[in-house]
């Protein structure tokens, strides 16, 4: 009797959605159950994450400088002396907001990859905004200066507009789903699917690109370059999986979205770890995470 009731309810609420992982289940069964709140700091603070990851032997992008108070912000001109190209990002930022990339420097004029030119004052304002917490919904943050990363040839081919990143969902240290986010003209150089970046489904087993999606629509060529996307294989895919396994073994967080980039000289680096990874990766792969994790025997 009880059983029958539950089946009816389950059918009503899940039905064919049995395969798909929704926001509520992700939060309750994966984030709350696998990512203890006290360890969120590691994911929320890029500086701390880099510290933990480097200690475990996971490659990360080096930190050139940090600005953590207004005194340091005031010294920006002196502190940036000798740094030609670099990226400034908030330690507690999410989704790529607040990241400023300087591709070229002429004296006190800084040029972004998109061609926007900033003076020292504008740069100082940006760093001050970061320190003030504008991009981190917090009252204080640290601005991190890292080298500007140059994508390895495979990724440079995908897009010349910005850095493509690889998102791998790790559950209980097992890679579950993966995608590459490729910046487009429409996404303004940002690797954010909602802003119009390309999403490429990557098969976990061999790194083969299976499918491409732009703003919810399936495509097979890059919208800006016309380059074919599907069928190519990500080089050194196994290395990336190994890095992810090593990283998630070192972290007390067991449901993660790991963001990696492959730099021309440094190779694969973990850029960011996300304790609340988005669900759109399912649409890009046309694979429901819930069913996938069940098949993998993880959940």
């Amino acid at each position, binding site marked *: 009797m009880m059983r029958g009731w539950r089946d009816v309810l389950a059918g009503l609420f899940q039905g064919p959605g049995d395969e798909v992982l929704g*926001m*509520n289940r992700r939060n309750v069964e994966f984030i709350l159950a696998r990512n203890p709140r006290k360890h969120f700091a590691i994911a929320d603070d890029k500086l701390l994450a880099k510290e933990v990851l480097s200690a475990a032997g996971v490659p990360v992008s080096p930190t050139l400088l940090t600005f953590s108070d207004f005194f340091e912000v005031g010294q920006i001109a002196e502190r940036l002396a000798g740094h030609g190209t670099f990226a400034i990002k908030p330690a507690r930022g999410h989704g790529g907001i607040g990241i400023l990339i300087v591709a070229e420097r002429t004296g006190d004029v800084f040029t972004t990859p998109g061609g926007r030119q900033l003076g020292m004052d504008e740069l100082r304002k940006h760093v001050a905004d970061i320190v003030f917490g504008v991009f981190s919904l917090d009252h204080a943050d640290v601005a991190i200066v890292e080298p500007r990363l140059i994508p390895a040839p495979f990724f440079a081919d995908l897009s010349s507009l910005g850095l493509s990143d690889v998102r791998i969902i790790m559950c209980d240290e097992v890679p579950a789903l993966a995608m590459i986010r490729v910046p487009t003209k429409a996404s303004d150089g940002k690797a954010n699917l909602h802003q119009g970046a390309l999403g490429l489904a990557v098969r976990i087993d061999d790194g083969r690109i299976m499918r491409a999606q732009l703003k919810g629509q399936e495509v097979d060529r890059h919208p800006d370059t016309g380059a074919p996307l599907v069928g190519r294989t990500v080089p050194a895919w196994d290395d990336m999986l190994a890095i992810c396994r090593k990283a998630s073994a070192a972290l007390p967080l067991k449901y993660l979205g790991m963001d990696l980039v492959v730099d021309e000289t440094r190779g694969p680096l973990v850029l960011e770890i996300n304790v609340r990874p988005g669900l759109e990766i399912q649409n890009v792969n046309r694979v429901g995470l819930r069913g996938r994790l069940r098949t993998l025997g993880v959940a």
Partner: protein
Amino acid sequence: MKWPALGVRTRVWLMSLTLLAIAGTSIGTRLPEIGSDFGFMIPELVYNVTVSQSFAGHGEAVSLQTFLPQSDDRQTVVREENRSNGLDFDPQLENGNRVGTWKSTGVKGRHSVAYEFRVRTRAVEYDISPEFGLGDPNAGGETESLAPTDVIQSTDPEIVKLADELRPADGTLISYLRNVFDRVQALKFKPFKGTTDALTALRLGEASCNGRSRLFVALMRAQGVPARLVGGLVLKGGKRKTSHQWVEVRAGSHWVPMDPTNHHFAALPHNYLALYRGDEALFKHSQDIGFKYSFHVRSHLVPAPEVDKKKHDLGLWAVFNRLGIPLDLLRVVVMVPLGAVVIVIFRNVLGFSVFGTFLPALIAASLRHTGFVMGMAAFAGVIVAVSLVRRLTQKLQLLHSPQLAILLTTVIGLMLALAAYADTHDIPRLAKFTLFPVAIMSITAERFALMEIEEGRKKAWVTLARTMVVVYFCYLTMTSLSLQILFLAFPELLLVLVVIEIWLGRWTGLRLSEWFRFRAMLGRPQGATR
């Protein structure tokens, strides 16, 4: 305290059952005092009536006179307030009516007086026994309600002739009433101003309410049935100048109402207010003073009177009664948690993204002063206007907190401007907009502006519209008087809300919006990369 080593599921059940047990026990122990009849929780409709009179004085003595409401078996006057603005006020009982007189010697210029009262009314319907006959000596013998007057010519041959024609063969009062009612109803309606006497109404074959009523009374008196005029108001929301007259006929020991104008036979609907009995003028005043009057009627729902009587047994009612906390405030505060449940359902079950976490509940609570339409229009207007300011300051590249402070100032400025506008244009509900949560509106305006910039205008407006939908549902729930009374009577129900939240908090089904979002994967073979 350390949790015992239990699974989450067990904890959820334990916690839920404990809370329900506490709530159930507490309600159960108090229930016998309150009684099992919950009919008192259904709110009642009451009317707030303001009778305004104004005149222009030229320095001589001025007197204004009107009738004040009295309680009887179908209307209860709850609260009265006289605003005589310097005139002497003198209420008197005259011939069973309450007469209010305002007097002044030597005022100049335009003056006004207002008499405001709240009245609870009910509909009545009488069954007139067929045992009552015409001219029955037991029907009461007040000569005043039988005698002819200049305008109720019950002895005039034309009236007597008609009365005899209408006299039923069975000689019962009820049949005669029917005949007279039909005959008077058949008169054409003409909205005459001034007095129409019974005979004129009959001869013209048309009349307004007072002509019909006088003809009705005259026909009654012509057959020896005591009858009298009743003057009063038909209560409809808004400002108007129309008063109304109907009739009461003596049947046994009762005065039975009849309204041949609006077709109520031995019945009155709830929205009739009687002000006087007899053939009187509603207003009497000194000559040549430019007299004006109006009635302003507002209806509201209030707790039934039994709630007042039971207050001491009714949980929070008793507490705040002692503390003197205003009921209006408390009954909204206690509903905010229910508004929060509504929001949680919208967010987690339907997948509705809105501005702010509990902003809709707080806005809905504020709307009780302004009404939904006025309040929402002002809210949306302020949000959009302030977001324009936000876009302007974007160009100044300001730091976050000063930026927000500017928006807060703009919100306050707009509120003051709206309040001033509401005051000069006499829109008291709009003036109440100043009671909205200012800081929350500033933050919402900021989010709206940022969303417009970062995620596009469409997304921002859609989110604002969704927010307004959720506010509407919060408002519906939170302003339900029955629910308010229920939660004030049984604050233990807040624990039940917590249990609902616990289960919503563990609910892992797909949100309605996700069925749409992941529709490509629903019910299809899975997997490009499987």
